[in-house]
C-alpha cells in the first residue's frame, strides 16, 4: 500500500508490522511522533502489545532488555540527549545479547541547545556493541526496521536504526507499506536461546572472572563479524519479498570515477542529484553510500574503492579533535589497500545546516583541485 507520510510514521508502521509486543519509550523531539503514533495505536487496539511510558530513556532501555530476555520482540525510539542518557543500558543490551531494535532520530547533542540533524548522538555510541545503520529516507527507515529484527534475532545483538532529524523524520514522502502477510512470512517468531526459564530461575549479569569476561566479549565480536554476511542475506530476502534492497553499502556510478563521494544518511539523496549533474558536465564522479556503520563494512568498501584516486567523505558529524567519524573509519579500512587513495574529510551539514547539490559540487571541485594529502577535516562553512 502506498502512503504519503513522514519518516517517523514509517518507523511506527514497521514496528506495527513486526507485531512488537513490548514498546518502552520516553518522548523526545524529533522522535516523539513515533512514540505518539504507537501510543495511539496501542490505545485504539491497532497494536496488541504493551506500550510502557517509562520515566526516562535509561528505564526505557532497561525495560526493553528485561522484556527481551523473556523472549519477546521489543522496540524503543529516542534521540540525542535521550540516547546519551541511555548510554549505560546500551552496553547492557549488547552485553546481554538482547535483540532489541531502536530507532534513533539523529539530532545534535547539547550544548548549545538545538533540535537539528547531526549524527553525533548515535556515533557517540559507536563502541556500545550495537549494530548501527543509517537511513537515506523514510522508506529505507521503514524497511530497515523490519530487516533489523530479522538480523538481530539471528545474531543476538541489538540494532540501532538512525534517521536524521526533520530531513527524514518529518519530511513527507510517498512510501510503500508492506502488507502484514508478507512481513509475517519474512519475519519468523523470535526464539531467544537464553530467554528466562521460569522453571529454572537464574541470575543474569553475575560477576565473572577476567577470563570469562574476555570470552564473552570475544563471542560478541565473532557474532558482530557475522553480521555483514547475515545483513546481505537478509537484504536479498527482503528484496525478493518486497522488491526493495539496499545492501550494506551502495556504490553509485562508480565505474571510471576519479573522485568518489562517500556519504551516509540523507545527504546521499542530495549527492545522487549532484553526481548526476556533474556526470552530465563531464566530470568522472561516483558516489558510495555507507549504510552500515557497525559492523563497519570494511571489505565491501575496500572492494568498492579499489583503484580509485580520490575520495571525499562528507560527514554530518564531527568528533572534536578527531574530525569526521565516517572518514576516520574509512581511512582505517583503506590503510592496507594498495595504491591507497587520497582521502579527504569534509564536515558538512553539522547542526542541521543544509547540504545542497551546490555544496556537494563544491566539495567535488575542491577534491579535484587538491594534489596532496590533507589530514585535517575540511569544514564547509558557507551561510
Amino acid at each position, binding site marked *: 500500500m502506498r502512503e504519503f507520510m513522514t519518516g517517523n510514521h514509517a518507523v511506527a508502521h514497521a514496528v506495527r508490522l513486526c507485531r512488537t509486543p513490548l514498546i518502552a519509550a520516553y518522548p523526545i523531539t524529533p522522535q516523539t511522533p513515533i512514540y505518539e503514533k504507537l501510543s495511539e495505536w496501542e490505545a485504539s487496539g491497532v497494536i496488541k502489545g504493551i506500550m510502557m511510558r517509562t520515566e526516562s530513556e535509561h528505564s526505557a532501555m532497561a525495560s526493553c532488555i528485561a522484556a527481551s530476555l523473556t523472549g519477546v520482540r521489543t522496540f524503543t525510539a529516542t534521540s540525542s540527549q535521550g540516547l546519551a542518557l541511555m548510554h549505560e543500558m546500551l552496553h547492557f543490551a549488547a552485553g546481554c545479547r538482547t535483540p532489541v531494535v531502536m530507532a534513533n532520530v539523529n539530532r545534535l547533542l547539547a550544548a548549545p541547545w538545538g533540535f537539528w540533524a547531526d549524527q553525533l548522538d548515535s556515533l557517540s555510541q559507536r563502541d556500545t556493541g550495537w549494530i548501527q545503520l543509517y537511513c537515506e529516507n523514510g522508506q529505507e527507515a521503514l524497511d530497515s526496521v523490519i530487516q533489523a529484527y530479522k538480523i538481530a534475532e539471528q545474531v543476538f545483538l541489538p540494532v540501532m536504526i538512525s534517521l536524521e532529524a526533520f530531513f527524514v523524520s518529518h519530511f513527507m514522502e510517498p512510501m510503500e507499506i508492506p502488507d502484514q502477510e508478507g512481513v509475517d512470512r519474512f519475519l519468523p517468531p523470535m526464539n531467544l*536461546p537464553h530467554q528466562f526459564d521460569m522453571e529454572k530461575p537464574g541470575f*543474569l549479569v553475575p560477576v565473572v572472572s577476567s577470563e570469562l569476561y574476555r570470552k564473552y566479549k570475544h563471542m560478541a565480536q565473532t557474532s558482530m563479524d557475522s553480521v555483514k554476511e547475515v545483513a546481505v542475506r537478509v537484504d536479498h530476502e527482503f528484496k525478493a519479498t518486497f522488491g526493495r534492497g539496499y545492501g550494506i553499502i551502495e556504490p553509485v556510478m562508480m565505474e571510471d570515477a576519479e573522485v568518489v563521494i562517500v556519504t551516509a544518511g540523507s545527504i546521499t539523496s542530495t549527492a545522487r542529484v549532484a553526481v548526476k549533474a556533474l556526470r552530465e558536465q563531464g566530470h568522472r564522479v561516483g558516489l558510495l553510500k555507507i549504510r552500515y556503520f557497525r559492523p563497519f563494512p570494511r571489505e565491501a568498501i575496500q572492494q568498492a574503492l579499489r583503484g580509485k584516486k580520490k575520495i571525499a567523505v562528507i560527514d554530518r558529524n564531527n568528533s572534536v579533535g578527531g574530525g569526521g567519524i565516517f572518514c576516520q573509519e574509512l581511512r582505517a579500512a583503506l590503510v592496507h589497500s594498495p595504491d591507497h587513495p587520497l582521502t579527504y574529510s569534509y564536515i558538512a551539514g553539522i547542526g542541521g545546516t543544509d547540504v545542497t547539490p551546490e555544496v556537494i559540487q563544491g566539495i567535488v571541485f575542491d577534491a579535484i583541485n587538491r594534489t596532496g594529502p590533507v589530514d585535517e577535516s575540511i569544514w564547509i562553512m558557507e551561510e
Partner: protein
Amino acid sequence: MVRFESMKICAESFELVIPISYGSTEVIDTGTWGFQKPETIFMTAPCEEACPAGNPIARFIYLAGDGQYGAALETILKENPFPGVCGRVCSHPCESGCNRNQYDDAVSINALERYVFDATVDRSPELHSVPNSDPKKIAIVGAGPAGLSCAYFLALMGHKVTLFEARQELGGVLRWGIPEYRLPKSVLKKEIGRILGLGIEIKTGVAVGKQISIEALNRFDAIFLSPGAGRSIPLGIEGENLAKAWRGTDFLQRINSGEKVRVEKEIIVIGGGNTAMDVARSACRLGSSVTVAYRRTKKEMPAIADEVEEAEQEGVRFEFLVQPVEIKLLKNRKIRVKFQRMRLRKTSRDKRPRPIPVKGSFVMLEADRLITAVGEGVDLSWIPQALSAKGFIKSGPSLVTEGSRIFAGGDAVDQQRSVVTAISSGKRAAISIDLSLRGQDPEEVFSKIRIGSKETLSMETYLNGRERGNWGEPKGVVVYDQINTLFFKPSERMWGERIDQSKALKGFLEVHTGLSSEGARLSASRCFSCGTCNYCYNCYFFCPEGIVSFDPVDRMRRVDLDHCKGCGTCSRACPRHVIEMRLIS
C-alpha cells in the same frame, strides 16, 4: 575476594551467549558492610497519649480499616471496658492530639470507636485475662464508670471482686445521669454485662454507710471507693429551695428511672457543664422552651462543645455572663430570677478567665421553672473524716487514701470529671491495688507502664511484665514531623449520621446513629497509624536489597540483617515512623 565458585555459572551456560548464574549472591554477607541497622520500634501515637483511658487507637483503627471489627473490639477492650459508651459520650481528647490536625483534619476516632462497638454488638469478644495463683478479695463501692472499670481490670487479673451499689441498677452517672438520647440503656447494659461476665459479685441496693458500715468491708484485702459525685451543688442564694426550683441531677435521675416527668413551658437552666446541657436538651424533649444562663461565655463552657452546638440547634437559648443572685415566686406562679451581669477578667494563661460583676447591672428573667446544674458534689457523710479533704475523698497518684488498703477514684476524688477520666482512674486503681497486694510500689511501676509522657497507664504493658515483675521503658510519642506526609493525600473528615431534628425532639431516641460502613472505612483509611505498622509494604517495596519480607500468616515484618547494608531507605520510606536506624555498636 568474591568467591566465583559459589556463583555456579553452569557449564551449559558457556554454550549460551551470556553468563547466567543459577547460584545465589546470598553467599556474600553484605550485611557486614554497613554501620547501622533498621529496628522496628513500635511507638505511641499522640492520640493514644491524649486518651485518658489509653485506648490502643492506631491499632484498633488499623484493624477496623481492615474490616476486622472483632479484633478491633478486643484490642480496645484490653485498655477500656466501655467502647460503646465512650464511642458515644466521650469528650474525645484523642482527636485534639491527632497528628492529622496539622495536615488537614483529625481522624474521626470517637466515631470509629463507636462503629467498632456497633459492628460487633452481637459478638462475644475474647477478653485478655491472665492467670492468678494468689487471688485477693476486693470490695468496690459504687458502680459507675470508675468502679466498673476497676472491677473489670481486677477481674481480668484473676481477683475476686464484690461490687457494692446503693441503687438497684449499675452504671452510676452512665445509668442515672446521661440521658437516653446520648447513651441508650441497651448499650450500657451490653457493656456492663460483658464486665459482669468475668464473675463479679454484685450487691445492689446496698449503700455503704447505711445498710452496711465501711468498717464491715475490712474483711476484704482491699477496698476501692468510687461513689461518684451525684449531689447538685446549691447556688447558695435566696429562693433556690422553692418548689419551682429543681436540682439538675434529680431531674435527670427521674427521667432516667423511667418516670414520666412533666415540666412546664418556660424553663431556665443555670450552669454550663454537661449536666446543664443534658438538662436543657431533656427539657426540650419534654416540650419546654429552654434558656441556659451561664456566668462566663460560650468559649469557657465546660460542656463538650458538640453538646453545646447540638443544644443550640435544638432551640436552646443562651444567656451568657449572668450569675443568679435572687429567685422570687411571682403571683402568677412564675418565678423571676435576678441575674448579676458579669464580665471576664483574664487570669494567668492556663486558667479560665474569671467572671466578675458589672456593678449595678442586672438582668431579670422570668420562667415557669428553674433547674440548677452548677456542679456536683460528693456525699462524704459515710466517709471517715481522715479520708476526706475539701469536699473530696483524698488520694494520691496511686489512688491510695489515708486508710490502709483503701483506694479511691472517679468523680469522688479531686480530678478532671469525665467518663473517660473515671475509666482511667478505675484502671489506675486496679493496677495500684494489684501491685500493693503483691508488695510492690505502684508509683515506681507506673513510670514504666505509662502511655507516652502523661499519666495514662497501659494495662497491656502492665500485664505483659507482671509475671516477670519487670517492665521496659515507655515508648516515645510520634510527633508530626516524624510522619512522612508525602505518602498521604488530603482528605475530608467523615462525620456520623444523625436523625432528623423534628424526630429527635419528639422523644429520647438516640440522636447520633454513627458512621456508615463506607464512612467508617474512609475514616480508618485517613489514620496516619503513627508509630504502628499497618502493613503498607513501603519498606518492602523501597528496600533496594529486596530483603524485607512479610510473613503472610502472622504478617510480621522481617529484615534479613545478614544482607542489610544499612542504607536507611526503609526508615525514610516508612510513612509512620515505625523503623529507626540504629548504629551498630
